[in-house]
């Protein structure tokens, strides 16, 4: 499974020397290692993060290297972990808590929504919350119940949060380093089914530099925006996390039929890079949004509506959504029926291509 990493504007160092093949697990681990080394106020904690190195080994070796004060296990209580993060942030720390699986963010939602997302506002900017919450997310690994959830629509709806999800090791490395050095809370959704896929990572620090435009907004293609994962002319597929590689697969298949698909890796789920959506669909005039979360009130609705608003005049067909169904995430045997598969995405593409008014 090969993924093209488009060159990043503003990247100065493209020497092969700084490009490494590594898995997303390794890239995330390395990012955390460097963040711990760079900022003594950074602390990592959660269930089994310390000695075990996390059930996905994302924090592997970090406690041994940086000490038990920097990387530690907590008791088994997610509200406790996130509530403690608030206090640590108030004391000047930069917490990087982990919830072990997506579904176990729910017990902490109260602290996330009512506290982490609001403390900067409530305190009128005097108590920033530089918290990066790592959430192994999405499905695809035949796991037990509550281990395959997609909470992005919920998080994106919460004022005061920023939400990001990398789709490949390079982005994982840079986005995590970026998120973990910001002064605002970021929900970092890791596509757990992609942890073990390898890919090239350009470790050059220049690759992380984000040179903002004059108006403070981010330049397209930079880490703060979406990424064109594949250029194409006929239809835009919008995806994030684990669905990006599936969309790239679909694009290869569609190419055999002469259909030229653009794949937009949204990366930031809040704020959404509306300009990148407008740019891409402005060109292709057709779009399909793909996500694992249930359809109704999913983030696909927001993406579709943003596209419709900016491209209404030129859009050839209503934006299609190919998503999980409005059913609880099913057990492994039915997982492939639930997660958008290649066939269903192709049907979605067909619908936007064949749409005729009236």
């Amino acid at each position: 499974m090969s993924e093209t990493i488009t060159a990043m504007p503003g990247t100065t160092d493209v020497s092969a020397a700084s490009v490494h093949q590594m898995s997303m697990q390794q890239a995330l681990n390395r990012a955390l290692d460097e963040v711990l080394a760079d900022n003594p106020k950074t602390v990592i904690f959660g269930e089994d993060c310390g000695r075990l190195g996390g059930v996905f080994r994302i924090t592997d070796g970090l406690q041994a290297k940086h000490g038990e004060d920097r990387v530690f296990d907590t008791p088994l209580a997610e509200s406790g972990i996130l509530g403690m993060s608030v206090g640590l942030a108030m004391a000047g720390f930069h917490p990087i808590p982990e919830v072990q699986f997506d579904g176990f963010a729910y017990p902490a939602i109260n602290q996330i929504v009512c506290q982490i997302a609001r403390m900067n506002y409530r305190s009128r900017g005097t108590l920033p919350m530089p918290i990066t919450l790592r959430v192994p997310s999405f499905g695809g690994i035949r796991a037990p119940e509550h281990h395959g959830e997609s909470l992005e629509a919920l998080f994106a709806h919460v004022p005061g949060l920023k939400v990001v999800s990398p789709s490949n090791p390079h982005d994982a490395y840079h986005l995590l380093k970026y998120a973990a050095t910001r002064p605002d809370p970021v929900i970092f959704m890791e596509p757990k089914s992609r942890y073990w896929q390898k890919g090239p990572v350009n470790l050059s620090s220049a690759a992380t530099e984000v040179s903002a435009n004059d108006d403070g907004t981010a330049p397209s293609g930079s880490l703060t925006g979406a990424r064109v994962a594949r250029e194409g002319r006929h239809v835009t597929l919008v995806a994030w996390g684990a669905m990006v590689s599936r969309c790239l697969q679909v694009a290869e298949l569609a190419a055999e039929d002469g259909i030229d698909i653009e794949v937009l890796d949204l990366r930031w789920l809040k704020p959404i890079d509306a300009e990148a959506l407008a740019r891409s669909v402005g060109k292709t005039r057709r779009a399909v949004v793909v996500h694992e979360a249930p359809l109704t009130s999913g983030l696909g609705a927001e993406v579709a509506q943003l596209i419709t608003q900016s491209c209404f005049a030129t859009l050839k067909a209503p934006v299609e959504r190919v998503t999980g169904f409005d059913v609880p995430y099913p057990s492994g045997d039915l997982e492939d029926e639930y997660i958008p598969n290649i066939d269903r995405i192709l049907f979605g593409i067909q619908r936007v291509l064949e749409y005729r008014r009236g």
Partner: protein
Amino acid sequence: MTTEPVLAAVDDDAAPLTHHQLRELYTLMAAVRHLDTSAVAWQRQGIIPAYAPELGQEAAQVGSGYAVDRTRDFVFPTYREMGVARAMGLDMVGYMSTHKATWHGGMYNPLESRFAPIQAVVAGSVLHAVGWAHGQTLAGQPTGEMGVAMTYFGDGASSQGDVHEAMNFAAVMKAPVVFFIQNNGWAISVPTERQVAGGSVAARAAGYGIPSLQVDGNDVVAVFEATRSAFAHCRAGNGPVVIEAMTYRRGPHSTADDPGRYRTLNEERLDAGEDPLERFKQRLLAEAIADEAFFAEAQRLAEEEEETIRRGIEDLGPRPGAEMFGLVFQEPTPALQSQATAWREESEHV
């Protein structure tokens, strides 16, 4: 401040177990032990994708499950109560199906089994037990005959806020609930001493005015007797009881876990204590309640049983995709029905 709350002495919790019952307990433990170790093997052989072994917790599970009255009580398990399920006579293919990734929660009928669906949220069902138990009070069950809820959870789960809310609710409402903690020393990689401040979950009970029993969780008879008196206390309308069974998770957290990363084999040997099965066997032998022929037969039965269950599991096909849609609601919505139709068209090409 408050005096230590104590269990009400109730008449019917005193009779010693008969030899027949003791042998039955052993037979159950042997079946559970064999099924458990076999399930780990199934996972290695690719028959099931994952499993959470209860090795070492057979006494805690069988002893407590054996005390349940299936005509009126109800059990709220976690994901590791295979031994309780077996002791309560569940359909074990239905039980094991959750580990085959057939259906989250299992395929047995929870209402008929008096055993709630398998629960993957740590501490997720502790409050359900309180609600169910309060339902017994509301239904006006005569004192002395109340149905009792028993909720299982671990030392790790005890850290969750829901456990506190549950104990407080139960005590305020005098709900007939047995909180059964299996303190097996570990929550994945975190040992009890870094999990349970104060060192004991049972010690928390006094703060709610709830009587508690800390029991040797590797002694099946002790566990049974503690559970039986807790049930009697609850049944008589005296409110909840906390039982903490001290045991040890001898295996990995799950088949995906590698305990070598957080404990040495030597620590395991030292901390695990006596094997509950072997220990019970020695006792039955010493008291001449069973002989080697009995144990051999128990083992044979266990193997036969495992064979049948394994075959059932192997034969278990995937559920029809339509169930994804059909089982969400009692009254399906048009929106969901049209998703089901679209799914059928696109995925089954009909």
